[in-house]
């Protein structure tokens, strides 16, 4: 059962990501990206990282996709078709990616992975919350604060960039 689910999720990821990078209608590409991100959340659920899957759905599928769709609506006509990329560009990019993918897959198929550890997983919400605010060894308080500062800087920067110039 879990095997079948995993194969469904991974084939959805591969098929829709290919459609996302080749579709010539830009709004459809955004919807295909949404399917890819939702299947990634499904894989997180299968590994029983429920919190991460919920974050993936709310931030990626909920937030970023809406942002993308808004920016598409603001910058291009809805049923406008993008021009197809030049054949030479497609050919060389495809060859480069194929080479890279073959090399990577070959490299890790040669490697003997150790047997997965059978220790008891700790991923309850309580453990996650406690270690995010723990400032002793093994805690994540510093990266948490750094991410907060980054979000603040991003808010200020975004407002500064998109503000209309009043002096003109």
């Amino acid at each position, binding site marked *: 059962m879990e*095997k079948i689910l995993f194969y469904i999720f991974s084939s959805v990821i591969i098929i829709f990501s290919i459609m996302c990078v080749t579709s010539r209608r830009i709004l459809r590409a955004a919807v295909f990206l949404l399917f890819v991100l939702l299947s990634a959340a499904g894989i997180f659920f299968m590994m029983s990282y429920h919190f991460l899957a919920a974050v993936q759905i709310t931030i*990626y599928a909920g937030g*970023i996709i809406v942002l993308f769709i808004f920016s598409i609506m603001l910058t291009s006509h809805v049923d406008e078709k993008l021009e197809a990329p030049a054949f030479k560009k497609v050919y060389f*990019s495809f060859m480069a990616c194929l080479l890279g993918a073959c090399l990577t897959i070959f490299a890790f198929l040669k490697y003997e992975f150790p047997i997965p*550890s059978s*220790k008891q997983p700790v991923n309850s919400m309580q453990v996650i919350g406690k*270690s995010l605010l723990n400032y002793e060894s093994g805690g994540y308080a510093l990266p948490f604060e750094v991410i907060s500062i980054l*979000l603040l800087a991003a808010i200020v920067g975004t407002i500064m960039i998109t503000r209309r110039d009043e002096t003109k």
Partner: protein
Amino acid sequence: MIEGIGIENILIVNTLLFFIGIYGFLTRKNLVTILMSVELILTAVNINFVAFNKYYYPENLQGHFFALFVIAVAATEAAVAIAIIISLYRRIKVIDVERADEMKY
């Protein structure tokens, strides 16, 4: 771990997703679609972090937290990039990478 699925299977899916993202990054001209390819790449890396965490170190949560921080950085990056794209569109009315060369010189 997922029953009956080795880590190689997850790694193959992620490698394909990563290189599909790079293909989109190289061939697309519209700035918004380039940003979408970057999101594909970040998702592939995220699944990798979580898979290694789950298969080999289930008693720790390092990969889980790293994936969480990658999601946060991806969200800020998308917000700032879309702000730049919209202000570029306001100025010169195109968002093609080849025609948007006003800030180059």
